[in-house]
């Protein structure tokens, strides 16, 4: 190059370069100041916002669902338990293509259509960064297979949880009920804070009734996580408060004995302690396995339960409505005395047929030519229809209903279970409302023998009998005796409403009891043939009932002794209490297909009595829970042994 000749030019070039360099540096500085300004903005003005986000980034709030309270029977047998299990959880935020992921996942862990449907439903109920359960109760092999392939599924994890378990299966399905996954409707009404992290809720039975007690209070953990959501350490932990344990009045042995005694016959049996309203047994046949429902019942299992003609999901003990038949006679007879219509010694002539005065329509006795002249005791003992036809007629439907309602007929007993039905106590108003028809006097007459529109549940009848046997003191039947805050915490009696005295004269009760003893012990008694009272250390007072499912249309009825035919037409009842002089248990047994109350239902009740009073000496039975004593104080009633 010829640098020397360009020398004069060199100064100008240098100056021009200097200007350009300055301009370039100035431009760069402006841009650098722009970047610096951005940092000032982020680090001073937005500092609070980003600090919060940095914390939110690394700190995850992990809900700790409270362990559900346990349920024990009166002797401490565990009826509802929590067992550890594993489930598959998905954080929707971390999954890019949900459907694709589910498809790939189903190749590794079997996912049913139900699982996926439920999962998609619950996706809507959760926020995107919350874990949504996909599959509950994973088997060990599923767990192993997934663990190997987990890296392919970001956002999917196996988490331990406690699942509800009912060790006695179908034995208590209708009492304890079951828990199930929270559905959309429940989600809306539940307090989101109390149910954070909880997936299950009581759906039926005690699980539903005492959801508030059983649920407990959730805790939480503040966990520091890294970008992969891997927990690094726990910053703060507030433990969940477990739900209260429930101690029931029910006795597992008696329950089992009742189930065995029913022997698979469709029906129900309820036993109540007349002294305090404690429900000792409450059996419905057929039943089902509540464990099936806990983690989502399969469509096939559910269909099978729904399509079973014997309707295993129907809680017959408190929702099955049956005409009470002759079992109402002791109650009506007592009403006659209490209302002053009759004295115990007053007699009625039974000729086989009874006519409303001035009418030609006849109402039959069970014995073709009648039982002759009977007083109250004989009328109950022999179940003489005529006595009660005339008494009901004499009483009139208004007073009749008023009296029966005192025993709880026609309305739910108020037991601590959801969805109890109240049966039907027919009245002119009820009939007008339901059928838009007037009331006929003949309907009053047949109501006197528990026929017509009457519907009672086995629980109602057991409750009424408990009231009758317990000196006319009406205790609301209940299953929950006490609660506790854990195994070591003391049991706290669960308060019950005070009992109501509904009768006036103990002598009236004594007369009725005499009649009911006759049912069992008099050779003329309707349960005598069945030998209910034979070789039993205590006196049993009982009453049979046989309600007709269809009205009599032919005379064939009177001659047909084919039990299968009768079972088809009848519902058999037997109610009893014992020991008759100081009752400790009142039982109602109902059979949907029983031929006669005395022959079919009474032996079942006897087996329950054996279990409760004879096979287990009273001294070995646990004492009456404190509830009974607490609530009885102040109430007038017969002295309790």
């Amino acid at each position: 190059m010829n640098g020397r000749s360009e020398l004069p030019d060199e100064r100008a070039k240098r100056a021009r370069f200097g200007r350009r360099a300055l301009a370039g540096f100035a431009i760069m500085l402006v841009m650098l100041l722009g970047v610096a300004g951005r940092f000032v903005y982020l680090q001073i003005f937005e500092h609070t916002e980003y600090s919060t986000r940095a914390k939110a980034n690394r700190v995850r709030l992990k809900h700790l669902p409270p362990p559900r309270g346990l349920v024990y029977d009166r002797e401490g047998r565990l009826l509802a338990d929590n067992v550890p299990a594993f489930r598959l959880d998905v954080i929707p935020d971390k999954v890019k293509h949900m459907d694709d992921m589910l498809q790939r996942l189903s190749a590794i862990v079997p996912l049913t259509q139900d699982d996926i449907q439920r999962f998609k439903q619950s996706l809507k109920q959760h926020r995107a960064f919350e874990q949504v359960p996909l599959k509950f109760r994973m088997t060990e092999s599923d767990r192993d297979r997934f663990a190997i392939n987990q890296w392919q599924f970001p956002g999917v994890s196996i988490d331990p949880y406690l699942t509800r378990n009912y060790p006695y299966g179908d034995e208590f399905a209708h009492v304890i009920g079951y828990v199930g996954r929270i559905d959309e409707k429940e989600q809306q009404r539940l307090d989101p804070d109390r149910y954070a992290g909880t997936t299950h809720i009581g759906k039926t039975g005690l699980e539903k009734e005492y959801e508030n007690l059983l649920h407990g209070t959730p805790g939480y953990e503040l966990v520091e996580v890294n970008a992969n959501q891997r927990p690094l350490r726990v910053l703060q932990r507030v433990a969940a408060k477990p739900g209260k344990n429930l101690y029931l009045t029910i006795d597992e042995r008696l329950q089992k004995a009742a189930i065995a005694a029913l022997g698979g016959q469709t029906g129900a049996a309820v036993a109540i302690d007349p002294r305090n309203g404690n429900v000792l047994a409450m059996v419905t046949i057929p039943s089902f396995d509540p464990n099936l429902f806990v983690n989502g019942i399969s469509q096939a299992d559910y269909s099978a339960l729904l399509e079973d003609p014997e309707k295993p999901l129907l809680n017959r003990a408190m929702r099955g409505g049956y005409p009470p038949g002759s079992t109402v006679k002791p109650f009506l007879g007592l009403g006659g005395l209490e209302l002053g219509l009759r004295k115990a010694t007053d007699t009625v002539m039974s000729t086989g047929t009874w006519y409303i005065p001035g009418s030609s329509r006849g109402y039959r006795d069970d014995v073709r030519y009648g039982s002759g002249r009977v007083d109250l005791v004989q009328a109950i003992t022999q179940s003489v229809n005529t006595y009660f036809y005339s008494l009901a007629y004499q009483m009139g439907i208004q007073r009749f209903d008023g009296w029966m309602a005192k025993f709880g007929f026609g309305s739910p007993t108020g037991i601590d279970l959801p969805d109890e039905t109240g049966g039907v106590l027919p009245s002119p108003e009820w009939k007008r409302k339901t059928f838009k028809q007037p009331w006929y006097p003949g309907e009053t007459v047949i109501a006197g023998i528990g026929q017509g529109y009457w519907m009672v549940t086995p629980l109602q009848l057991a409750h009424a009998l408990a009231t009758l046997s317990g000196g006319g003191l009406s205790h609301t039947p209940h299953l929950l005796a006490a609660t506790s805050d854990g195994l070591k915490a003391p049991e706290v009696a669960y308060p019950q409403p005070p009992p109501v005295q509904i009768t006036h004269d103990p002598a009236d009760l004594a007369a009725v009891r005499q009649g009911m003893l006759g049912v069992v012990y008099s050779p003329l008694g309707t349960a005598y043939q069945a030998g209910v009272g034979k070789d039993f250390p205590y006196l049993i007072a009982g009453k049979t009932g046989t309600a007709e499912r269809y009205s009599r249309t032919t005379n064939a009825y009177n001659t047909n002794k084919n039990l299968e035919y009768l079972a088809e037409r009848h519902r058999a009842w037997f109610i009893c209490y014992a020991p008759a002089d100081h009752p400790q248990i009142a039982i109602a047994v109902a059979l949907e297909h029983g031929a006669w109350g005395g022959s079919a239902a009474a032996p079942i009740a006897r087996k329950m009595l054996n279990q409760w009073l004879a096979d287990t000496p009273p001294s070995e039975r646990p004492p009456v829970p404190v509830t009974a004593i607490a609530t009885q104080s102040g109430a007038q009633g017969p002295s309790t042994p």
Partner: protein
Amino acid sequence: MNELVASFSGRAFRIGRRIFSRPRIDLPLAIGLLVLALIGLTVLYSASNLDRSMVLGQAARFVAGALLLLAVSRIPPTLLRAWTPWFYLLSSFLLIVLMVLGEGRGAERWLDLGVIRFQPSELMKLAMPMMVAWYLHPRPLPPRWRDIIAVGVLIGIPAILVGKQPDLGTALLIAASGLFVLFLAGLQWWKIGAMLAGITAVAPIAWHFMHDYQRERVMTFLHPENDPLGTGWHIIQSMIAVGSGGVLGKGFNQGTQSKLEFLPEHTTDFIFAVLGEEFGLVGVLALLVVYAFIVGRCLWIAANARDTYSRLVAGSFGLAFMVYVIVNGGMISGLLPVVGVPLPLVSYGGTSAITLLTGFGVVMSIHAHRKWTP
């Protein structure tokens, strides 16, 4: 034999002594670089989760780079100028080799020469301004249109090669370093305006030829909240890191964003965010001041250089260096798209550090030879 070895080692020693005995380096610039390297190693130590071997590795590269710097600073600019076309052709050739048989991590940026793996595109960052300066050096300035077009070709070929790798960010930076030479050569403002207008017109066409991931990055840049777990994640987490640092920062090794791996690439492209999180605004501004000082010093050296080539090379190198800082800072603070540009001399990475220090060696050489006649 022994004599041969002795004479050879003796010669090598003499050459070494000649190079290092009286280093004619610019002390302020050297101090600036030293401070920068120390800041870089400190932040890297924290960002790597106190990984000593990583920091020592980076320090070793700094030492290698410093030796190269000292060596290059002894070479007269006239010699460097004479070598420039060969250097440019070598870099271009390596880019082509890379394109043919490159192996990469997603993007083909790395060339494996058995002993060392490096990124030819980093080499081109230095070769580009030198080549444009070489071309413009004997020609009348301000550059004429035909020279501008020729320069456009010189810039365009490597830029496209790098852009094809695909590494759009580096391609743009390489192009920018070439264009800075044009700017410093006194290109008229109206021509600059015309060129900018032309680029604006061409942008939609460029969009058409972009890779999907590049478009996605631009789109994510515009709306990071739309994709909080994909590409937007990087920007959001980086802004959280910087913003949560506040004025004074969370303290050395206390940054939760990088420690808990929320911050991606926290030893390389996003190391600036680690600094912002742990040392706060004070640390950020201090770093920017160091950078501004280094660049200012480069431009001062350029202004005092003795010939056009030297001025253009030193000046454009300084401006390009500043652009790296601005682009990286803009990227991690959410001002600019995520383009994958390291923070010069702070981000972990060998090729970049060594190339940059070599570049500073050129600047030092220009400084050392400012009073010499060729």
